[in-house]
């Protein structure tokens, strides 16, 4: 025996580490990744590869050469940012656009604030929104899935995009949604960014995260409920102008956003109460943007807006202290 170790209590630690939690998130994303590769083919694999590799490399380079600090890529958070960014762009996006997205996500949205834990906005979403604003052509030219060994892609719009366009041309919602089979939405058979395509795979990952107690389900549930309730009200008022709840729940990356982006530890409130308010905010803003905004899709913007008020939510919604009013 060498010298005795002396430290303040507690003397044991749970098995959780930042790395293990992030690894769980990566595992939870695997079904969605497999789905998107199966539906979109090798091009999607390339997108994923470029995105993950550039995120990890950028983080490594920034910590090593700019911050001159120990590398933080071991915690796997850059891998998650990479996967989420890839799932948020169409599989036809050129590699250099994805690289620019990674630069914005890791370089601007994450490392500028001091790396993991310090960022205000979800890095992958900032990257995605930057690309959406800067390269609208690449980001809005969606292609219908062609499968791993399928034929050439057919260009088209996402369901939400198609409906917005149709509404502007004077069609009613009923006519437009008639074109979609909701079963297809659930099992990923429609155009969209990779992550939007298979709701079931995403939900499987979400259930895994909840079972592993990595995240609590409240944020996700409150987003989904708010979207359902809000759209139910509007749809009830005017079914010709507004889309129905089920359609809204299954399209536009809502499930990806609610399960994996809004629940990001760093950019979501700590308390359950705060999380529920945060989720209500996201759900409501999403629906407002979808119904009245000029973008067909609002989840990314809604999450980023609510990210900005997280410090306030943390201040306002605290858990009850023991023995205090």
């Amino acid at each position, binding site marked *: 025996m060498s010298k*005795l170790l002396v430290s303040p209590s507690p003397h044991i630690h749970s098995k959780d580490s930042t790395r293990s939690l992030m690894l769980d998130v990566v595992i939870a994303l695997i079904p969605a990744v497999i789905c998107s590769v199966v539906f979109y083919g090798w091009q999607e694999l390339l997108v994923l590869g470029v995105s993950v590799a550039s995120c990890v490399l950028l983080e490594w380079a920034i910590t090593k050469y700019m911050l001159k600090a120990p590398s933080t890529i071991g915690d796997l958070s850059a891998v998650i940012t990479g996967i989420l960014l890839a799932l948020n762009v169409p599989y036809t996006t050129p590699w250099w656009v994805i690289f620019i997205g990674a630069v914005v996500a890791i370089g601007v949205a994450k490392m500028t604030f001091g790396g993991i*834990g310090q960022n205000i906005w979800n890095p992958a979403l900032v990257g995605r929104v930057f690309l959406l604003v800067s390269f609208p052509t690449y980001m809005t030219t969606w292609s219908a899935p062609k499968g791993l060994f399928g034929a050439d892609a057919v260009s088209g719009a996402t369901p939400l995009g198609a409906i917005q366009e149709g509404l502007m041309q004077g069609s009613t919602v009923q006519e437009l949604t008639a074109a979609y089979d909701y079963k297809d939405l659930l099992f990923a058979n429609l155009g969209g960014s990779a992550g939007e395509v298979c709701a079931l795979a995403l939900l499987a990952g979400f259930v895994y995260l909840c079972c592993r107690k990595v995240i609590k389900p409240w944020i996700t549930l409150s987003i989904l409920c708010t979207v359902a309730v809000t759209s139910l009200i509007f749809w009830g008022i005017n079914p010709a102008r507004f889309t129905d709840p089920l359609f809204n729940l299954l399209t536009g990356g809502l499930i990806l956003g609610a399960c994996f982006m809004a629940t990001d530890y760093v950019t979501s409130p*700590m308390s359950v109460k705060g999380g529920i308010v945060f989720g209500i905010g996201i759900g409501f803003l999403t629906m407002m943007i979808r119904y009245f905004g000029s973008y067909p899709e609002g989840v990314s913007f809604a999450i980023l807006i609510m990210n900005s008020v997280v410090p306030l939510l943390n201040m306002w919604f605290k858990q009850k202290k023991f023995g205090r009013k």
Partner: protein
Amino acid sequence: MSKHTFSIGGVHPHDNKISRECALQQLPIAPAVYIGVSQHIGAPSVPCVAVGDKVKVGQVIAEPGGFVGAFIHSSVSGTVKSIAPRADLAGRSTTHIEIAVEGDEWLEGIDTSDTLVTAIPEDAKTIVEKIRLGGVVGLGGATFPTHVKLSPPPGSKCERVIINGCECEPYLTSDFRTLLEKGEQVVVGAALLQKAMGGVPCTIAIEENKPEAIAHIREVIAKLGYKDMDVMVMKMMYPQGGEKQLIDAVMHRQVGSGALPISVGAVVQNVATALAVYEAVQKNKPIIDNSVTVTGECFPKQANLIVRVGTPLQYIIDYLGGIPADAVKIISGGPMMGRAVANLQAATVKGTGALLFLTEKQTRRAPETNCIRCGKCADACPMGLEPFLLNKLSKAADWEACEANAAQDCIECGCCLYSCPAHIPLLDNIRVGKGFVLSAIRARAKK
């Protein structure tokens, strides 16, 4: 079977009760014992023997230094060798009375037989006085003098006595063995406490991972025919045995910040304390020994020992075969709240409940990384605090903000640091903030 638990937070460390099958055994008396005068919360006791005096087991060797104080008795018979400063397990010098052991001669009047005495004194005052004379202090860890706890301030009324048999700290088994092997005595001790508090009902709270103890104590209560006493099965959750948490779980009442359990009508005593109460009142035997779990995965000869107060730790360890090669840390107490031993020459005190050996892999802290704001510390905190915030405020030395965010409510259970995935030394810093806030509160109270 319904299981009870507290309402906020908590963690689930593996309970690791590996020494649960080891029956209580007497540790041979050491050649010399060192009895500290500051074994309890409150004023240190004043030695009342001189160097060269002959003492017997159970003889008073130090008297209380104030109302919140306790008698200290000789745990051995022999000659007082010195009364001098000696380092405790943290290396701090306090006065110790060194006694060289000669034989094992007990003071007259102490009943050393095994017969169970169930006849309870009629008068509550007699019981409390006997407890005071027996030097009984809370053996659950806090070592608060028991007679003070049993003398509620005017205006407050006790409604329930709770016997804390949760033993929620991983590894520890001495209370479990005591319940199994000395269940009758514990139950009579509980009845004495009931009587002392004016015949209020009593609940013995035991965690679900000790089914044998639960069954045994139920049997004993039925056998002795106590009506106002029941066993409550608690959920396995840390810190179930925390005083405030236990009251919340048993009585659904929350003790306010800075308030005492009696403010909600509860008196909580540990199983070992109940045994000590029995021995002090029924057998005239003061606290001269206590049961100590010696355990750890790396420690081959696990044991639950009955150890005389003042035995050097080194003596206990040598008796069980020395420190294993891969042990790097020795803890006095459990792994969540125990204190790391820096000095093996230190002697046991009344409150010593365990010696735990941990290996490098089990206990070495991982390097601190950035807070990822996961909120696991806040979820784990049984007091509903925000450890991540208190950590920051304490590091910034903003004591006013620490107070506003209730740093003084921290019970130092260690749940926050245990659950932090970024390995941030939350509790280390919160303790600092808590200390400053408490001294500020005391300073204000004086004014």
